[in-house]
């Protein structure tokens, strides 16, 4: 409350040379780093740093769904819980799900249900947990991107990974991957998630104000970015397996890893 007066009335989000406040071009992603297999207890896990976002994802399952009356005799349930740590935002968030988290959990879970071979595991649930440790806009995309790697790390059979990214509009221009300041003072935000191999859109949300051609440009930016993110996801999984293989090799030879 005390620093309200410091909020500038107008922020020049894009300078005359087309650079954004953090120096990025309009079609430039923030730096992304993904690591697979970071937790011991979970069946699969991944950690992502995406700009100033820090997000952990973990997967348990397929495991027996309970309570029992939720079990689907024809397929696995894919359940997602998106959660923000109380200290992940500037004003402490009360623990437990708020309405925003409930909605994101729902649409993210539906996105993953589109790629998991659920028919192979009737009566089970695949439980996906996304924990936002530090937030800077774009946490749902970061979380979905990480959770997708965690699903692969858990060995859950899927048609493909899911890659997620947002584009929006700032200072009247379409831009990729808004950070917090841009999200607060921008005109529109449009997160999406895609199955990279087929281009199928499994998550799509938008609010703000976009003309049709702006929407087209935003989607193109997001699609291109998703392909880059897909490569990072696969790279993270490759590193994970290489490490694991090397460890297995050393262990076999009695070397303490």
């Amino acid at each position, binding site marked *: 409350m005390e620093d*309200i007066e410091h909020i500038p009335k107008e922020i020049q989000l894009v300078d005359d040379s087309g650079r954004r406040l953090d120096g990025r071009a309009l079609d430039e992603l923030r730096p992304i780093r993904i690591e697979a297999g970071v937790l011991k207890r979970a069946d699969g896990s991944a950690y992502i740093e995406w700009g100033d976002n820090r997000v952990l994802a973990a997967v348990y399952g397929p495991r027996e769904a309970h309570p029992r009356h939720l079990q689907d005799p024809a397929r696995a349930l894919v359940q997602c819980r998106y959660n923000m740590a109380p200290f992940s935002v500037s004003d402490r968030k009360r623990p437990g799900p708020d*309405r925003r988290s409930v909605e994101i959990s729902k649409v993210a879970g539906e996105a993953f249900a589109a790629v998991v071979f659920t028919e192979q595991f009737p009566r089970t649930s695949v439980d996906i947990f996304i924990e936002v440790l530090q937030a800077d806009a774009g946490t749902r995309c970061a979380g979905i991107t990480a959770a997708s790697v965690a699903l692969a790390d858990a060995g859950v059979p899927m048609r493909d990974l899911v890659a997620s990214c947002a584009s929006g509009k700032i200072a009247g221009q379409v831009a990729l991957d808004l950070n917090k300041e841009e999200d607060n003072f921008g005109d529109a935000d449009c997160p999406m998630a895609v199955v990279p191999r087929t281009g*199928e*859109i499994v998550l799509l949300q938008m609010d703000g104000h976009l003309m049709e051609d702006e929407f087209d440009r935003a989607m193109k930016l997001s699609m291109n970015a998703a392909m880059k993110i897909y490569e990072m996801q696969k790279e993270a999984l490759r590193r994970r397996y290489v490490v694991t293989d090397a460890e297995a090799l050393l262990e076999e030879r009695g070397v303490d890893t």
Partner: protein
Amino acid sequence: MSSEVVSELMREHIVKLIASGKRADGREPEEVRKLTIEKNYIKTAEGSARARLGNTDVLVGVKISTGEPYPDTPNSGVLTTSAELIPMASPTFESGPPRPEAIELARVVDRGIRETKTVDMAKLCIVPGEKVWILFIDIHVLDYDGNLFDASSYGTLSALSCAKLPAKLTGGEDQPLPLDHWPVSVTAAKIRRSIVFDPGLDEERIADARLTVTTDENGDIRAMQKGLSGSFSYDEVRYVISTARRLGNGIREIIRA
């Protein structure tokens, strides 16, 4: 919804019909059901409307009072949207705290109003930082026969359009609520490879994916929400957007009437 069984035969029947461009109730794929709006339905509310979309029946009330603004928006009114899927409306709705379905519904309707700047929130400031108008939008679903997103959105816009800022709280005359836009949502359901608009209950139950697109009186996109565990191709998204814009125009006329 999953708890209610639609027989496999029924499912196959609908799928087959839709694949051949027909629908169980005789509508065309791009045909929405009859919309009836009764404004000022409730005396105890400052604005209200009963919206019937086919047999889907939604009552929306707007209660208006005065109070303190949020500390981070001292010059804006406050808007809160809730939806109750009361057990009267469907055998699949249960009492208790709102489930993810109700929360998603309320949030999508809310974004369709808030992010589109339908209500000019700055004009709802009475004394900056101290006293503003507070709007509670309550969506009360009475009879559920599919496509709650659109029925609720139409009911909400209608209720806002006839709402009055009550003079008894500030002196002077009752004032109409300042509405700047007329955003209208249109929802499509994808069933196998076909897309139908304004899905009825039986269609909704077997749909693979859902896409809601909100457009304004200029044809601009104001909000989108994809749901369910299927996917859309980019071309399908574009098709839904342009159809939503066209259908939206007809619906807007009914609401403004």
